[in-house]
């Protein structure tokens, strides 16, 4: 068993940090894990990308080969589109729908969404709305993980444990809001 995830978004969205939730849950399940991300200048409002690989055998490359990702988890729709070449046939895309237009040549957002809808296995989620419903607008990323939970080779309880672990130092209110966001996400893509 191997499972490869491309996580993508825009610098400053803080999206990539949720890859830790999935990585910790995978390690708790006894899988080998490699995770790769980009730092530095490219973090400043540009594209940000993390690769997360898990397997019951040792993982070799920290980078996912093209056409092999089982899941693209995107925090912004144009970024989802950018990494489609990494998706394997039959793989899933779970993407937030809110465009982040910090560039002058951002294409028509409807056209971006239309392109994504053409891809079998693409699930478009209003992660911001889910997070607000859960009571914490900043939990959109965790809501998105919830929406992707059914594809992951991990138990929901393991993901919840990792969420608790990650947010524990921020207090119970933040932990609870994130657990609710995760649950709202799961319900959005049952």
């Amino acid at each position, binding site marked *: 068993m191997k499972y490869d995830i491309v996580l993508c978004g825009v610098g400053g969205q803080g999206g990539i940090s949720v890859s830790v939730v999935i990585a910790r849950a995978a390690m708790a399940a006894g899988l*080998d894990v490699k995770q790769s991300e*980009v730092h530095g200048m490219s973090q400043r*409002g540009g594209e940000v990308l993390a690769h997360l690989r898990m397997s019951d055998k040792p993982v070799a490359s920290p980078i996912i080969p093209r056409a092999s990702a089982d899941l693209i988890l995107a925090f912004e729709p144009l970024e989802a589109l950018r990494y489609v070449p990494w998706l394997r046939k039959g793989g899933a895309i779970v993407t937030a729908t809110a465009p982040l237009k910090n*560039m002058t040549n951002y294409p028509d957002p409807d*056209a971006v969404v239309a392109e994504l809808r053409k891809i079998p296995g693409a699930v478009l989620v209003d992660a911001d709305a889910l997070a607000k419903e859960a009571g914490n607008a900043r939990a959109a990323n965790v809501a998105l993980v919830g929406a992707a939970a059914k594809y992951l080779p991990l138990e929901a309880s393991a993901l919840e444990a990792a969420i608790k672990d990650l947010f524990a130092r921020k207090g119970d209110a933040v932990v609870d809001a994130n657990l609710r966001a995760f649950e709202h996400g799961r319900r959005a893509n049952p």
Partner: protein
Amino acid sequence: MNTETLMGDEAIALGAVHAGLSAAFAYPGTPSTEIMETLQAMAEKGATTADGAKFVAQWCANEKTAYESALGASYAGRRAMVSMKHVGLNVAADPFVNSALIRIHGGLVVVVADDPGMHSSQDEQDSRALAAFARMPCFEPADQQEAYDMTLEAFEFSEKHEVPVLVRITTRLAHSRAVVKVAAKGRAQNPVDKAPQDMSWILMPAVARKRWKALLGKQADFRAYAEERSTLAAASKKLGVVTAGLALQYYRENLEDFVAAEGEAPSHLHIGHYPIPAGKLRELCANVEKVLVIEDGYPVVEEALRGVLPTPIPVLGKMSGELPLDGELNPDLVRAALGLPEREGVPAPGLPPPGRPPQLCVGCPHADSFAALKEALLEYPTHAVNSDIGCYTLGALAPYNAIESCVDMGASIGMARGAAEAGLRPTVAIIGDSTFYHSGMSNLVDAVSHGTNTTVYILDNQTTGMTGAQPTIAPSSRLKDLVIGLGVDPAHVRVLDAHKRSHEASVKAIKEELAHPGPSVVIGVRVCIEAYKKERAK
């Protein structure tokens, strides 16, 4: 043994502590920054070496000062590490090359993080080539486990052979995480024990000639060690594969498919230690019909293998076009080089997504500084704005279009000065506070000494911003006095509020200094938005 999930940078930091590190020095630079950040975070939490002793972990003004501090710690008999990004090694090149000649006392490990693909750099130079230039041994880990293990090994090797060891990593290893087995208990620190007074640290010509001979004499031992530590697995006679460092993982990623297609695995030599193990390379090549070299960065091994005379078997790699000469290696490029077909994915979207370039944060003080400068320069159709390394390099892009050059740390002031001396006026040097402390001050001294008609605009955001807001080596409050101390006329040292609310005053002050026929310094002060957020989150 414990297991931890570590980035390559973290694995090196932990390896150093477990090796009995006494002192580490660095200047921030992507992708090496997290080595020092990890050491400092450990020290802050009270981490010690096995003997319960604390270790020193300090940011320095630049890579050269960091390197020299590490040399001093080695002279004192203690284990020292200096870490930097690849271009930082250029700054530290003087102590780096000479340190190979002295009789290293406490183990000295030089960690250099290369950035093939230039994720966050001005070039993609390969530090293995600089290690060879300095006749210094180089270790190149293939994963996070080796990053940890080789750091310990490098300290041992350094003390045994009385030579610094360069540990070369790349961005992808530095910034990816994997599970690492680490020692439960490390080694104690060396006691303070000054280097023997045998002239071996005094590189005056008569001594240096002897030390150079000594270094050349050690090469056979270095090479023998690299031969012993590289691994050769004979298999197919049709193809031999050489991998170096992290490239091993891209090869492994494709091996199963290769075996399925070809029926057998290639013969394989993996190199993690330099100087290049020429004997093992000859042994591999004697038994295969052709050889493919897979390495990230320059074709260092491939070039050595080719030499200048015809090779008895075809050598494939970056120089023959099987792999690209530039950019970062990845599993797909290696797949193609192995002759495997592309994986078939989903059809490409009909809408090619335009790139999303990095940009200054919302509310960044640099944006306001650029606005003031551009307005002040309006009355000069001909002018030069030379800039430097930092977030403000993004001032080259729209909507700012405010800077015209970015070459190396500190070059802004030197270039603006040289252009002015050559008759192009007015010239402005835009430089951040951290870059000014790193390499700007000596250029400003030149400008003062020659009375150059140029204006230095220091963007003082009170941090090293681009690498994630590390503290600068001097506080903002001392910058003005420092500039005056370097000899700039106090009447032409202006401190501005780098904020929209002070736009008119800033434009006026910059105009006045542009009109001043000698050296002038304008300091735009406002804390970096990221540093502010980071401080508040504490």
